[in-house]
C-alpha cells in the first residue's frame, strides 16, 4: 500500500514536473489570493476599531490614509490574483493533459497486442479518459491548496507572534493541525470503499452492455425483467454507497468550517482578555480573531484536497500500471535496423505449432518458407486456425512450438517496430483510423508524393472512386471507415500495404467484398509488385487466385512440405 502510494506520487511528480513553472505560478497566485482575503478582513476590523476609538477621543492620532490604502490594495490584489490564478492553473492543466495523452498513448502502443485486446473496450474507455482527467486534480486541487494553505498559515502565524502573546499563534497552529487531521481522517474513512465503487461502476457498465446488446435474447427467453430488476438493485446499492461517501465529504467540510469558527471565537475571547489586561491595543484585539476567521477559506479547501488525493493516486496507479507493463513487455531490443533492407531476410517457419494453449494446438507442426514472387495460398474451413497462423507468422502471437525467423533472427526477439519494417500484415478484422486517405496511405508522413499515392490507389482499382469525391486524397473515411464500403476499406488498406513496400507480405482474405471482375483486376495489377516479395495469402476461395501460385489446403491431412 505504502509502496503503491509512493510509486503513484513519483509518477505524478514525473508527469507534472514538466510544467512546474506554470504550477508554481498558479500556487503562488492562489496563496496571494488567500492572503489578500485575510488581509482585507483583518485590516478592515483593525481600521474600524481604530477609527471608533479615535472618533471617541480615546486614540490620540490616527493616519486614515495608509490603512485605507492597504484595504484597497488588498481588495484589488485579491481580484487580480484570483483571475490570473484561474488562467494560469488552466493553462498548466491543459498543458499537462496534452503531455499525459501523449504519454499514455505511447504506453498503450508499447503493450503487446494480446494485452491490448484483453482490455475490455468499456474498461479501457473509463480507464483512459476518466483517469487522465482525474490526475490533473493532483497539482491543482491537492498540492496547490496544501502549499498555498501552508504559506497563508505561516503568514498569519508570523503576524500573530509579532503582535500578540504566544497563545495566539498556538490557536492558529492548533486550528491548522486540527483541520488537517480531521479532514484527513474523514477522507480516509470515506474513501475506504472508493476502490470498490470504481469496480462496481465498471461491472455495472458490463451489465448495461449485456442488457441492451442482448435485449432481444433476454426478451425471447423472458429474462428481461429479471435482468432489469437486478440492474436496478445493483444500482440502488451503488448509489447508496456513493451517498454514504458524499455524507462523509459534506460532514468533513462543515466540521472544518466549524473548527475555524471556534478558533476565531477562542481568539476573540483571548484577545479581549489581553486587551483588558492592557497587553494588546483594541484594534489588534479585533484584528486577531478576524484574521483567524479569514483562514476559513484557506483551511476549508483541505478536506476536498485529501479527498481528491486518494482518487488521483488511484488513477495515477492505473495509468502508471499501463506504462510499467508496457516497459516490462518490451522484448530485448535486438533491432534489425543495422541490417540492410535487401539482405536475404527471408521469413521461414520450422516445426511450427500454433494456438492459444499448449495442450490444445490448433495447427501444426508446419514448415513454411514461401518463395519470392510465388505467393503461398492458404485455405481451409473456418476455425482451422488460418488467421491464427498469420498472427503467428507476423510475430503477433508466440508459436506454441517451433520457430518463425526472419533471416537468422527469431521473430519474437525482434522489437515490434523492427519487425514491421520487414513485414506487412493485413489481418481480417481491420480497423482504420478516422482520418484522411492521405494520412492512411502515408501515415508516417515520409517523402511519398501524391503521384505515388495515386499509383497505389490505381493498383487496387480505387483511384476512380477517389477522383469522384470533391476532397480527393483529403477525403475523411469516418469512424471505423464508415464512409467507405467494406470492399473499399479493404482495398484502401491494400494500397497502404503496397506503399509500405516491405519484403514480406501477409494478407488475410484481402479480397472479401470485391466482385470477381474487380478482384481479377486487382490481382493482375498487384502481380508485378509481388515479384520480389514473399507473400502468404489466406482465402476461403482459392479457385479465384492464379493457379500457378502454390496452395496449402489446411483441410487436407497435413504433410510437412
Amino acid at each position, binding site marked *: 500500500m505504502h509502496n503503491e502510494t509512493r510509486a503513484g506520487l513519483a509518477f505524478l511528480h514525473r508527469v507534472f514536473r514538466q510544467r512546474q513553472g506554470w504550477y508554481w505560478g498558479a500556487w503562488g497566485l492562489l496563496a496571494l489570493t488567500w492572503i489578500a482575503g485575510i488581509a482585507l478582513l483583518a485590516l478592515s476590523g483593525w481600521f474600524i476599531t481604530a477609527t471608533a476609538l479615535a472618533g471617541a477621543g480615546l486614540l490620540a492620532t490616527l493616519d486614515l490614509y495608509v490603512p*485605507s490604502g492597504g484595504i484597497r490594495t488588498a481588495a484589488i490584489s485579491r481580484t487580480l490574483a484570483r483571475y490570473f490564478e484561474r488562467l494560469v492553473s488552466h493553462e498548466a492543466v491543459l498543458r499537462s493533459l496534452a503531455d499525459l495523452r501523449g504519454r499514455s498513448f505511447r504506453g498503450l502502443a508499447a503493450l503487446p497486442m494480446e494485452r491490448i485486446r484483453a482490455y475490455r473496450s468499456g474498461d479501457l474507455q473509463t480507464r483512459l479518459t476518466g483517469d487522465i482527467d482525474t490526475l490533473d486534480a493532483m497539482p491543482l486541487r491537492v498540492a496547490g491548496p496544501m502549499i498555498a494553505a501552508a504559506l497563508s498559515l505561516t503568514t498569519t502565524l508570523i503576524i500573530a507572534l509579532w503582535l500578540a502573546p504566544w497563545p495566539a499563534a498556538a490557536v492558529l497552529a492548533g486550528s491548522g493541525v486540527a483541520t488537517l487531521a480531521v479532514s484527513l481522517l474523514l477522507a480516509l474513512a470515506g474513501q475506504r470503499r472508493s476502490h470498490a465503487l470504481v469496480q462496481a461502476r465498471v461491472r455495472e457498465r458490463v451489465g448495461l452492455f449485456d442488457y441492451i446488446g442482448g*435485449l432481444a435474447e433476454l426478451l425471447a427467453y423472458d429474462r428481461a425483467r429479471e435482468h432489469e430488476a437486478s440492474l436496478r438493485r445493483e444500482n440502488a446499492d451503488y448509489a447508496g454507497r456513493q451517498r454514504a461517501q458524499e455524507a462523509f465529504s459534506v460532514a468533513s467540510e462543515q466540521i472544518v468550517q466549524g473548527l475555524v469558527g471556534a478558533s476565531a471565537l477562542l481568539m476573540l475571547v483571548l484577545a479581549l482578555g489581553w486587551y483588558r489586561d492592557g497587553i494588546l491595543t483594541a484594534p489588534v484585539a479585533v484584528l486577531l480573531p478576524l484574521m483567524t476567521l479569514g483562514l476559513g477559506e484557506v483551511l476549508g479547501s483541505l478536506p476536498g484536497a485529501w479527498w481528491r488525493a486518494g482518487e488521483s493516486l488511484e488513477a495515477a496507479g492505473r495509468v502508471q500500471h499501463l506504462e510499467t507493463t508496457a516497459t516490462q513487455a518490451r522484448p530485448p531490443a535486438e533491432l534489425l535496423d543495422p541490417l540492410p533492407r535487401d539482405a536475404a531476410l527471408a521469413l521461414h517457419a520450422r516445426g511450427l505449432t500454433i494456438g492459444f494453449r499448449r495442450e490444445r494446438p490448433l495447427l501444426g507442426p508446419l514448415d513454411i518458407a514461401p518463395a519470392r514472387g510465388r505467393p503461398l495460398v492458404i485455405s481451409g474451413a473456418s476455425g482451422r486456425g488460418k488467421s491464427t497462423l498469420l498472427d503467428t507468422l507476423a510475430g503477433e502471437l508466440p508459436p506454441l512450438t517451433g520457430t518463425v525467423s526472419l533471416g537468422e533472427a527469431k521473430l519474437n526477439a525482434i522489437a515490434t517496430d523492427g519487425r514491421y519494417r520487414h513485414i506487412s500484415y493485413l489481418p481480417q478484422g481491420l480497423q*482504420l483510423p478516422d482520418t484522411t486517405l492521405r494520412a492512411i496511405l502515408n501515415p508516417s508522413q515520409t517523402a511519398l508524393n501524391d503521384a505515388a499515392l495515386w499509383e497505389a490507389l490505381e493498383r487496387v482499382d480505387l483511384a476512380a472512386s477517389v477522383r469522384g469525391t470533391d476532397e480527393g486524397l483529403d477525403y475523411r473515411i469516418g469512424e471505423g471507415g464508415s464512409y467507405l464500403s467494406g470492399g473499399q476499406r479493404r482495398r484502401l488498406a491494400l494500397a497502404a500495404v503496397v506503399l509500405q513496400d516491405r519484403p514480406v507480405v501477409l494478407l488475410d482474405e484481402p479480397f472479401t467484398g470485391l466482385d470477381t471482375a474487380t478482384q481479377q483486376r486487382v490481382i493482375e495489377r498487384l502481380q508485378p509488385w509481388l515479384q520480389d516479395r514473399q507473400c502468404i495469402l489466406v482465402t*476461403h476461395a482459392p479457385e479465384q487466385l492464379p493457379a500457378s501460385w502454390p496452395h496449402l489446403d489446411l483441410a487436407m491431412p497435413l504433410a510437412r512440405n
Partner: protein
Amino acid sequence: MTEPATTDTHATGERASPGQWLHTRQQPHRRWLVLSAASTLVATLATIALAGLVAWAVHGTLFAADAPYLPGILLGGLVLLALRYSAQALRDLAGHRLAFAVKQQLRADLLRQARHTGPTRLAGQTTAGAWAEQFQTRVDDLTGYYARYLPARQAVILTPLAILVAALWLDWLAALLLLLAAPLIPAFMAIVGMGAEQIHRRQQEEENRLAGHFLDRIRTLDWLRRARAIAATEAEVVERSHQQRRLTMRTLRVAFLSSAIMEFFSAVAIGMVAIYIGFALFGAIDYGPAGDITLFTGLFILLLAPEYFLPLRQFAQSYHDRAGALAAAQTLAPALASPSDPMDPAEASAPADEDAAAPWLQLEGVTVHYPGQRTPALADLDLAVHAGAHLALTGPSGSGKSTLLAVCAGFLPPATGTIRRHPMARHFAWIDQDAHLFHGSLRENLQLARRDTIPDAEMASALQQAGLPLEAPELPDGLDTAIGEAQHGLSGGQAQRVAVARALLSGHRLWLLDEPTSALDPDTEQALLDTLFQLADVRGLTLVIASHHAAIHQRCPQRLELAPATPEAHHA
C-alpha cells in the same frame, strides 16, 4: 420493488425545454428542497446572531461600563456555531438526497423504457455503448444541478433577505448599508448567466471531439503499429491537445472575466464598507447616516458582508453544474419521451386460437411505420406461419424483412392490423446476425435459456448438437470458459453456435432468425445451416428466417418475397 410511475414525463418530455424537464423530474421529491430551504434559513439566522454577539462583545468590552462576561460569550458563540454548521450540513445532505432520488427514478425509467422500446427500435436510436454512457454518465451529470445548484439558488435569495431583515431589526443603519449593495445581486446573476452556458457547451463539444480522436487512435492501434505510424500518431495526439488548449484558453480568458468582476465587487464592497464606516466613526464624513454609526454597527456589517456575498459566489460556482445538467437533459429527455407501447409478446397479441390446426402466427393487415419516415416499413401485410414451416423472408435490403420478423417476435407493435399467436408460439427462440454473448462463462450464457438449472450434461449435448463440442480448442475450460464482450477465441460462427445451443436449451419450438449467417464466410455459413436444418427436422422446429442469402432461400420450402417500399406512391 414496484415499478415507479412515469408520472407526466411522457406528456412533457419532448416538447418541454431542458430546464422544464429538469423541473418536472424534481417535482415528486420536492420535500428535500423544502428541507434545504429551511436549513439555509436556520444557518443564516445562526450566522446573524453570531455576528451580533461578536460585535456586541467587542463594543461592550471597549465602551460599556460593565464589560461582557467572556466565557459566556465563548459558550454562546460555540452553540451558535454548532447550530450554523449542522444546519449547513443538513442543507447539503438534503441536496444530495434530492439528486439521489431523481437519479434513481430516472435510471429505473431508462431501464424500463429500453425494455418497452424493444431491441428493434432501440437499435435505430442508439448503440449499447451510447446507452450505457447515458445511463451512467449523463444521469450523473444531473447531480450538481440538484445537489448544489438548486440549494444555492435558494440561498442566493434567502440568505441576503434574512440578513437584511435581521439587520433591520438590530440596527437600521446596518440594514441600509447592506441594502445599498443589494441591487448588485441581480446584476451579478446576469453576469454569471451571460454566455456561461454557451461557453460550457462549446468547450464540452471540443473536449468530446478530442476524446473521440484519442479513443479512435487507441482502437486502431493495431493498424497504426503495423503501419509504423505510432510516433507520428503520438505527435498528432499531442498536437490536437495543444490545439484544444489554445482554443479553450481563448474562451476562458473571457469567461473568467465575468467571475473576476464578481470577485472584484464582493471584495471591493467589503473594503468600501469598511472604509466608509471607518471614516464615519472617525467623524471625517458627515453625509448619509454616518453620524449615527457605532462600533457595534461597523463590526456587525463587516462580519455580515462576506456572508451576504457568499451565497452569490457559491451560486456562480454551481452555475456550470446547471449548464452540464441542461446538456444532459437534452439527451435524456428524448430517450424517455419516445412512444413506448408496452412491448410484451404475450400481451401485445390478440387472443389466440386454441385450435391445434390453427397457424402458429397469423398476421392480418399489418402496417408498421418508423417515426420520421414517410413510407411505411410494412404495408397491409398478411402472413400465416403454420407449425413445422420453414419460412424464409426474402427481399432486397430495406424491404422490411427484419421489421416483419420483429413484428412476429412482438418487438415491434404494428400501427394497424392484428397478430394472432398460437399458444405454442407465445415463446420463441431468437438468433440474430451477431449473437450476443453475455459477459460470463459459457455455462451462464446457456443458462439464460431457461429458469430452472440446466444440468451440465444437457448443456454439453446441446453444444454438441449445435456443432460446438466442448472439446473444441476454443473452449479450454469447457463450460467454465469465459466468453462475453471480448469473445476470447470464439469466432463469429462459433458465437452463432452458442446461440443455437441456447435456443435448443430453451425448448421453444418457434425459432425466429434474423440474418443468422450474414456475418459469416460462405463455408461457415453452409456448416451452420447444415446444423440448423438438421436440428429443425429432428426437433420439428418452426423456423422463420429473415435473410437475403441464397444459401438460406434454397433450403426453405416456403418463401415470402417482400417488395421494397415504394416512396413514389407517396410523393404527390
